[in-house]
């Protein structure tokens, strides 16, 4: 995934946060079966994340959101054709939701501690690691959380309308790590 310029950053000991715009589309398929899952995997050159709360990384990162629903980290235009081909004959739709979300990259040895302040989600690496994702309440707003391969970095996706709130929450929450 190409990194766009950060809109906002925060640094504290053991912690670095960057807010970015991210391309995003939602794909919904009514009652997908194994054949359409396989066709999507082939179209995107990866093992399509059919299991709940899993992520697949290829040219495009794809996260499971709900049964028959996925978030594609791409705008709808470049993925429209492969999706339409793979889903031929299936009731489905693809919506570009790029304007609706903000991506927060949280890195550093204190990233897990910071997440724990805002979400009740169990982020212990024993149960939450690379290849998984989870939607939860973070700082009282709906968030998609994706752990990174490195083990101490997370991507967080929240509604763009809460960006100001999330920024303020991070500033306040990071204070204790400065002491």
């Amino acid at each position, binding site marked *: 995934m190409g990194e766009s310029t950060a809109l906002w950053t925060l640094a504290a000991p053991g912690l670095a946060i960057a807010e970015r715009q991210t391309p995003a589309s939602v794909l919904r398929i009514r009652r997908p079966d194994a054949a359409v899952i396989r066709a999507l995997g082939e179209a995107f050159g990866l093992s399509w994340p059919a299991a709940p709360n899993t992520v697949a990384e290829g040219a495009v990162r794809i996260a499971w959101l709900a049964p028959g629903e996925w978030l594609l980290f791409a705008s709808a235009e470049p993925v429209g054709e492969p999706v339409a081909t793979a889903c031929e004959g299936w009731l489905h739709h693809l919506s570009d939701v790029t304007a609706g979300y903000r991506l927060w990259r949280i890195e550093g040895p204190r990233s897990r501690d910071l997440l724990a302040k805002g979400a*009740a989600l169990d982020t212990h690496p024993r149960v939450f690691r690379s290849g998984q994702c989870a939607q*939860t309440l973070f700082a009282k707003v709906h968030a998609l959380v994706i752990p990174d391969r490195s083990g101490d970095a997370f991507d967080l996706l929240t509604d763009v309308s809460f960006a100001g709130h999330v920024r303020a929450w991070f500033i306040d929450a990071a204070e204790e790590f400065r002491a």
Partner: protein
Amino acid sequence: MLLIACPWCGPRDETEFVNGGEAHIDRPTPAESVSDADWAAYLFFHDNPRGWLAERWVHAFGCRQWFNVERDTVTHEIRRVWRLGEPRA
């Protein structure tokens, strides 16, 4: 705080869920010939036991799926979770 095992996401905090009332209530049909009394019973009269109750919950801040939970209204113990369309027992 309840720990509710979403059939898709596994155990999550109660704050991610919304309660949808008693489960397995059949909507009376056909709508055009249902009596006012039957509609009232369907809409307003539900079980309110002290003890085990089958109820619907939605994982509102997770996968947004509805499912059924059997919960003790006194102890809050949850002994069973099952998907919509699956039999009660």
